[in-house]
């Protein structure tokens, strides 16, 4: 019997069964890579959606997912349909846009926002907030709830944007699966929530329908961080777990867009595993709460 470091090792039971063809190291599947680049170039030139500087690993995964979900055999087959039929584009975009968040995801972030940001916002007569890349809206409603409880919501307008109209439609509805309320409630309480979370929604069948007055000062609009410019000046910008999908060059450009859209001494909130450390804008911000990724523009 073979030994490794003196320990006897039985031969692998599956030895010699199937061996897939070898590829050159480091290049993945070179043909698939060409197909992906052709697809992205085509989608950009035909429709203007630019995914060319997305982080390739997660994008590749999502494209493969679309190929499978459509029952196709290759990325080329997907490209042929997407480029010729806008209905296919819609489904493709949806597959690339959906992220899974939760209300009060990272409760500590909302706790820090209450403690560090809210007191300063109280001094503002009117507060414009941009939630950039809001996906299906869980975190937008979370912020609306927090601001209501702090007595600030009437002074706020929250612009919630996403590149994809289909996820915005869901976000506008403010209806989330009832099954998730247990998690959302726990998050809400950990985030310093002051009431019974069930006061904010009505349960109907499998759905939790959030109270209409939470939508009073929400504006949902289509905006693409990659290709669209600044559209207003904001006191708070939240862009959480959106730029993780971008490569560093695109991240730097989007940070420039956020920076120019933020008033001086305005607040920037990022996702819990994002930071400014590789970005040229790092020195323009002070860390308000380093752990919770809350920053303040200082220059």
């Amino acid at each position, binding site marked *: 019997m073979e030994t*490794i*470091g*003196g*320990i006897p*090792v039985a031969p*692998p*039971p*599956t*030895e*010699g*069964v*199937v*061996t*897939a*063809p*070898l*590829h050159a*190291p*480091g290049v*993945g*599947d070179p043909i698939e890579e060409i197909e992906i680049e052709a697809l992205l170039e085509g989608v950009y030139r035909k429709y203007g959606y630019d995914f060319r500087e997305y*982080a390739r*690993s*997660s994008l*590749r*995964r*999502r494209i493969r997912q679309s190929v499978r979900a459509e029952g196709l055999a290759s990325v080329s087959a997907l490209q042929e349909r997407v480029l010729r039929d806008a209905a296919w584009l819609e489904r493709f975009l949806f597959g690339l846009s*959906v*992220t*899974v*968040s939760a209300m009060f995801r*990272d409760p500590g972030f909302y706790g820090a926002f209450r403690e560090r940001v809210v007191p300063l916002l109280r001094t503002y007569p009117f507060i414009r907030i941009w939630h950039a890349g809001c996906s299906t809206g869980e975190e937008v409603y979370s912020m609306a709830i927090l601001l209501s409880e702090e007595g600030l919501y009437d002074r706020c307008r929250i612009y919630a944007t996403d590149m994809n109209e289909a996820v915005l439609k869901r976000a506008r509805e403010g209806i989330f699966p009832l099954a998730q309320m247990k*998690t959302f409630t726990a998050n809400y309480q950990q985030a310093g929530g002051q009431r019974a979370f069930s006061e904010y929604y009505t349960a109907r069948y499998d759905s939790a329908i959030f109270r209409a007055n939470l939508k009073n000062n929400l504006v949902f609009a289509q905006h693409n961080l990659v290709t669209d410019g600044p559209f207003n000046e904001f006191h708070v910008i939240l862009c959480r*777990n959106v*730029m*993780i*999908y971008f*490569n*560093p*060059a695109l*991240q*730097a*450009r989007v*940070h*420039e867009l956020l*920076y120019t859209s933020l008033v001086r001494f305005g607040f920037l909130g990022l*996702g*819990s*595993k*994002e*930071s400014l*450390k*590789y*970005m*040229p*804008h*790092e*020195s*323009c911000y002070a860390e308000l709460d380093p752990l919770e990724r809350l920053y303040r523009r200082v*220059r």
Partner: protein
Amino acid sequence: LTPAIDSGRPKAVADAAEVDGLVVLGASKGGFRALKHLLAALPGDFPWPLAIVQHRADQRESGLCELLDRAGALRVVEPEDKDPIRAGYAHLAPAGYHLLVEPGTFALSADPPIWFARPSIDVLFESAADVYGARVTGVILTGTGPDGAAGLAAIRARGGLALVEDPASAECRAMPEAALAATAVDRVLPLAALAVFLAGLPRRGGRS
């Protein structure tokens, strides 16, 4: 006064050429003990960067990273988005995110869970196989469920090395068995032998 910002040019991240492969490990139920054992056996100058997915709840403060950090000579860290892949470190997928490999760096995603898991083993393994091909070693440890089987198959299909903890002695046998059902592998070893095998893994990898 507007500060001059050289936008569009991120600070240097990692020299991608420095990294030419890695060892990826996936574990579910029973994984803490298994990972502790493996980390204790690996020397501080272990030449391959490590990346680990341990199935975990969607919360941040579990202490898992700190506990594993104390297990051996390698530093255990939870990577942030686009952090460099570094030898001497075991990079633990953070709770609530998928961990993916890019050339020279890690990336995170908030995509839906796979097999109810986020982080998912398949996501890490498949992205490692895409980027580093034959210079990836994949290890499936104890656990329940089929996560990791497709990822290990992808690693082996690209010429990488596939290792599985022996189901007979694993705390939970389902995950190793699912991996063995999905792909031919290079070694099936009990934990102790797996640790020795990894510690002796030559600098230049790939199936020989």
